[in-house]
Each structure stands twice: as C-alpha cells, then as structure tokens.
C-alpha cells in the first residue's frame, strides 16, 4: 500500500496519451496570433490538407532565429528587411507575400500630445517627442519594434535614451498592458489592439498613413540547410495560403465589424 499506490498513480498519469498526427511547426508573430485569424485558418487547413500546424508564437526576431536554427519548418512574419536577409543567408528558400494589416497609434483618451490631427505617422511621433509624453516601445527586436524604430528615424527623433521613452522588451499584449497601466502612447497592430481586453483609458488616436501598412510574408525553411525540415508540407501549406480559399477566409475575417487583413498574394 502507501507509497506504492502513489507511484502507480503517478505512472498512470505519466504514460497517459501522446497524440501523433501529420504536423509541422511554424513560427508566427504575436500580432498575427493575437488577431485570432489563426483560430479561423488552422481548422480549415486541417480539414483541407489533413495537416496540423503547430504555432510557435514569438516576435519576428526570434521567429527568424528559430528558422535559422531549423527548429521550425516555416515562418510567417512581417519585417521585409530581416526576411530578405533570411533568404539571402540561404536559411529560407524564398519569400511569399500573403496579406497585410496595419499599425495604429494608441494613446491616452485626452491625447496630451495632440496626435489625432497629425497628417502623417512621423508627424504624430514628432508631436509625442515634443510633448515628452510617455511612450511604450516593444523593445524586443520584433517586426513591430523594427517598424516603430524606422518611423522614429523618419520623424527625426533619434535620441532613444530619454526618460519618457520606455522599452519594455515584451510581446504586444504585455506592452499594451504596460501602456494601459502608465496611460502612455504606444504603437500596436490593429488586430492586437481590437482584441486587447484591458484598454483602460487608452484609445486609438492615429491610423491610415500608408507607411503603417504591415506586410506579412511566408518563408519556408531551406531543406538543403536542415534535412529534417518537412519541406513537402511547407510547400503544400504555401499553396493553400495563396489559394482562393485562403483569400476568402482572410478577407472575410472581421472583428467588431472591421476587416483586419487584406489578402495580397500574387
């Protein structure tokens, strides 16, 4: 009795069910996952292809590292520069554009820096810098972070070592939580913002500048570099992602009556 029963019970739990199906691993960005689009697409992919896609939800920087190390079979990210370097380095076979969504500027409802009336994203950021309003940055080398840095460069505000600029080094959700707590400005993708449940006194203040468009691309990992990669499945998934079926699902995906993604695969 006694200890033996405990061990037996433990062994029962330990050996319990391991599922095995056709599966591939894909690294995607937090912004894609937070949008909820994955929950729509994955069941359809499973139904159409019989393929289970395991998502690793990380920032673009880490997604690319995972692809380089061969730990995933494909990546779906949004930072063209890093993607081109990934393909140039021979880690991915090619880059296929799938769809885009857009970034928006979020801030305190009363808008102390008056960015709501800005004519461009760069001008809005310039106004935040001029007013020295608190601004939360992802600071995690993700696609969103890289986009934000490029916009600051355009606005002419390159000094990052200032007290009002807060780098949190976290995912979109965690960064939004921080901005909500500090009542600060932040740049977010539209989907993450709409789905975010802890808005507090924050509001969407600026959107629509074409530079804020955010292109997602699919990059299969190069099987020449990593022999174990499921290149066949990665190719099938790519064919599905650029199909009319995917277009219908992606364009038809709405949240609060707003279309979040625009399919633009050629």
């Amino acid at each position, binding site marked *: *009795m*006694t*200890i033996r*029963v*405990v*061990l037996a*019970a*433990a*062994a029962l*739990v*330990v050996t*319990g069910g*391991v*599922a095995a199906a056709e*599966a591939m*691993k894909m690294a995607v960005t*937090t912004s894609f996952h*937070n949008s909820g689009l994955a929950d729509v697409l994955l069941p359809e992919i499973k139904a159409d292809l019989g393929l*289970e896609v*395991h*998502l*690793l*939800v*990380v920032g673009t920087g880490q997604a690319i590292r995972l692809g*380089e*190390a*061969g*730990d995933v079979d494909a990546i779906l990210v949004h930072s063209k520069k890093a993607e081109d370097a990934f393909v140039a380095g021979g880690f991915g076979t090619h880059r296929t554009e799938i769809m885009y969504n857009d970034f928006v500027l979020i801030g305190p409802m009363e808008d102390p820096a008056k960015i709501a009336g800005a004519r461009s994203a760069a001008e809005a950021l310039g106004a935040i810098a001029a007013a020295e309003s608190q601004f939360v940055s992802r600071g995690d080398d993700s696609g969103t972070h890289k986009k934000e840095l490029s916009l600051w460069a355009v606005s002419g505000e390159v000094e990052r070592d200032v007290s009002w600029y807060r780098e949190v080094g976290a*995912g*979109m*959700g*965690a960064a*939004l*939580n921080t901005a*909500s707590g500090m009542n600060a400005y932040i740049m977010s993708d539209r989907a993450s913002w709409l*789905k*975010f*449940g*802890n*808005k507090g006194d924050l509001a969407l203040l600026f959107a629509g500048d074409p530079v804020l468009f955010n292109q997602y691309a699919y990059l299969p990992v190069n099987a020449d570099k*990593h022999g*174990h990669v499921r290149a066949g499945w990665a190719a099938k998934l790519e064919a599905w992602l650029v199909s009319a079926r995917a277009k219908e699902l992606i364009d038809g995906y709405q949240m609060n009556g707003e279309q979040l993604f625009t399919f633009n695969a050629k």
Partner: protein
Amino acid sequence: MNEIVEGLLKAGQLILSLDADLIEISLRSLRVTLTAVLISSVIGLPLGCWLAVRRFRFRRFVIATLNALMGLPPVVVGLIVYILLSRSGPFGVFGLLFTPTAMIIAQVIILTPLIASISHQAIRDLWAEYHDLLISLNTTRRQRIATLLWDGRRALLTAALAGFGRGIGEVGAIMIVGGNIDHATRVLTTAISLETGKGNFALALALGFVLIGLAVAVNLIIHSLSRTERSGRW
C-alpha cells in the same frame, strides 16, 4: 478587485462545464511535472541520502553547491536546455525541442537539486539516530541507504512534494523549451501567461485558480494515499 471575483466565477464555470481545453492543458501540466518529479526523485533521493551517509573530502562543498542550486533560475535552465536541444545544438538530432519531453528535461534539472537537498537535510537527522545501530549490525553502505530511505519515507515525500510545488507553478523554463504550442506543449502556467498578454485577466485568473486547486488536490491525494498525519501516528 472586480476581476478577482470574475476570475473565481469563470474558474467555477470552466470546471463545472468540463471545458475540453482546460482538461487537456491541466492533464499536460500534471503529466510533465509528475514525470519530472518522479525522475528527479529517483536521482535526488538516493543522492541526498548518499551525501548524508558518506564522508569524503569535498562533501561540504558539494552540499553547499546543492543548496545553492535549489535557487537555480528556471529561465536560465530553459535557455540552456533550449540551446542544447535546438536543431543547431549538440542534441538537435533527437528533435526534442518544443515537445513535452523537452519540458520534462528542463524541470528535472530544476527539481533534482531541490529534492536532493531537502532529502539530505531529512536523512542527516535520521542518520544521526541510526548511525550506531546500522554500524553495529555491520551493514553495507547500500543497505544503510536503503534503510534510511525507507524509514525516512515521510520526510522524503515532503521533498518530492516540494519539488512538485516548484514544478507545477514554473513557467520560465517550460515557456522557452516548450514554446507554448496549442494542443502540443501548452500547460496551465504558459496559458496564464498568454491570456495575461491578451489582457484577458478574468480567464488568466480563472486558470490560476484551477492551478492552485490542482496543486492542493494532488498534495491532499498523496497525503491521504500514503496515510500521513493520521491519529495516533506522528
């Protein structure tokens, strides 16, 4: 404050409706941590006992190191295991990264020093008591360790449960080596972290309450099965 009440209600709702996802991730949490505790106990309990019985030159140093390793930062363990198991790392050929096995490996590394250390403390006192008897019976070292392990089993159970407590609530290491993949490596703690990131505090809290309930339930079950703390017995 409202959110805590909301979280409690949501937790009750999830449990009563036998939510399929909740059951799946709870079972995976249990499977990963119980396996890790089992393996860590098999290594840690005899190791702790051996350290109590055996006298050798660097004993004090080894014990101090073991005690220090009880505070091993999970996130660092996760990162090291991640690098080792990555396809580009030395053990990449096994393809273990982002599987429950990787999570178990990381937890074994975190839990073994803890279990060994606590069992060493417990056995040391017992050894002081048994020392003369076991020596005079002319037992071998193996026999002494077996006797001490058996007679100290209740204290050792505490060591294993402490390991369980640390493992079931751990998020840093398993997030890195498991990747929090839905239906593959998502467990309660990583799901809580995910829902917090989405700002879904009520759901995150609900999962938190389920996690606490699970930890309490496992402890109660093990205690009642092993009949500790019963009347007339200390």
